[in-house]
């Protein structure tokens, strides 16, 4: 059933000719994305602490966040400044560029089996896949979690729990309320280890 939803999503995106993972990356896109590379990595795999990988994120997630940075809803000194001059067309192009990059490699060494099992159980209990998709690869305006940097995920979850992280619809703020710091650690490490 969940796989069905994901498959349908891919099918409908294809039918509409949307730029998805299979889209071609143009030189103009690469050039526009160059300022992002310093922190997010040339191919969207972030080498920097507490910085998200953008590779293979859904295009609508990237564009939504860039709009929210530009409009000042989501706060980050660096990102607010970088997003300020971007037009909607620029943002669409950047979203398409990073969405088309190969998915990030798992963050860190493979997890011991018990840590992986604990992470999977927690992710199941919290119904993460309900919004983030069957394989936690994101959909529409909702981010991919699989392979994201664990330190970034940890800080976002802590921010949601503290109700300080910008949240367009309140979903993650509500979802994070029941998490303990230990839960957050288990989840962040587990999600980062997925491919």
């Amino acid at each position: 059933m969940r796989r069905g939803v994901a498959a349908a999503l891919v099918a409908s995106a294809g039918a509409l000719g949307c730029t998805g993972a299979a889209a071609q990356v143009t030189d103009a896109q690469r050039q526009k994305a160059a300022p992002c590379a310093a922190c997010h990595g040339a191919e969207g795999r972030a080498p920097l602490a507490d910085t998200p990988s953008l590779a293979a994120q859904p295009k609508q997630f990237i564009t939504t966040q860039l709009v929210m940075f530009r409009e000042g809803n989501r706060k980050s000194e660096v990102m607010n400044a970088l997003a300020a001059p971007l037009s909607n067309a620029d943002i669409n192009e950047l979203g398409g560029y990073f969405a088309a990059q190969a998915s990030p490699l798992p963050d860190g060494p493979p997890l011991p089996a018990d840590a992986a099992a604990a992470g999977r159980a927690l992710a199941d209990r919290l119904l993460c896949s309900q919004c983030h998709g069957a394989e936690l690869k994101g959909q529409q305006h909702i981010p991919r979690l699989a392979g994201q940097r664990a330190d970034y995920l940890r800080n976002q979850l802590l921010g949601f729990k503290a109700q300080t992280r910008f949240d367009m619809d309140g979903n993650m703020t509500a979802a994070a309320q029941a998490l303990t710091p230990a839960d957050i650690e288990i989840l962040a490490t587990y999600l980062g280890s997925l491919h």
Partner: protein
Amino acid sequence: MNRSTTTRLGVLAFGLVLAGAAAAQTPAPAPAPAPAPAWQQGRSGDQATSTLHPFAPILTGRAASELPLDKLKVPSGFKVEVWAEGIPEARSLTLGDKGTVFVSNRNLKDVYAITEQGGKRSVTKVLRGLNSPNGVAFANGTLFVAERHRITAYDGIEDKLASPPEPRVVIDNLDPTSQPGHFWKFLAMGPDGKLYFNVGAPGNIVMPSYAQATINRVDPKTGVMEIYASGVRNSVGFDWDPRTKDLWFTNHARDWVNDDLPHDTLHRAAKKGMNFGYPFCHQGDFLDPEYGKGRSCSEFEAPAAKLGAHIAPNGMRFYTGSMFPAEYRNNIFIAMHGSWNRSTKQGYSVMRAVVDSAGKVELSPFLEGFLSDAKADPPMWGRPNDLLVMKDGALLVADDYNGIVYRVSYAR
């Protein structure tokens, strides 16, 4: 965000005042746990694993060239075309005296103007930095904008689109509780010269305060407001019958009962003071499973029509133009923005409602084709949200998912 900043500043100030005064300081209080988001409120236990969810608009807009426009369908003799693009989250429409079309949005902060000069149409952002400016209305040279918390007026704006005047506040403090859910406001100028707007329910199915789940009106000359209709869960579309001057409005019924109940509705409010049932009774004959206990639907005004469960009727307009065939005159067009809270989706269309002399409403499709796969996620590639009858009689349709305005015309 603002709240957390304030809290942090407050804690900092508190710490400074007490610094050095006492050894044992009270730790900063943790914020109260955040509740479930408004759209999830009212789910039953077995609905907690549901994959149904509202759809977010593409906030940068999509170019018309990316869209499967050939899928759009109108009745024989009618034509639909893209009229303007590049208006992210094009939400509500209003027409200026001099022909400017103003377009609002809900998740963004702007108002756009679409103007035509020498046959060339252009789209310009004219207002910025607003707080969910969902409602726009125009009268006597003035543009009125309903933000989350206030209604403002921009006098003579059509003559100074490049440098609009400062806003004049008509009424403020419309959202004193920062209510969750349904905080965006539709705005329309009534035939009585008063501005009408909704205050939605602060959740899916909750007991509203007396000022919530209402349609209100405010006199723009005095700023005095009054409740016009109550028991209205959330109405983001209304218009007046050009013959009788009666107010008609669309209403979203509650979610999370089931796929087919309750219906969203079309209503007529011929006078002030009517109650339309929320949260006790929905669709005129369905008592709420929780709040309906011990109540009767006969206490409340019945709807003029049931429109379909979860179909999300938003903008509605009486057809007052002369371009369409005569039988369309005074029909109601309704933009169906949904559905999301339904396993098989319906809507994503513009419907035509014909009201006969006995008040019976007959519905038929008018503009269809946005729904691509009723079982897919997302099921649609576009979402009609508001409508506008132009001076030449053409009908504009705002699509907030893509940031596009379409024009439906008729060739004799």
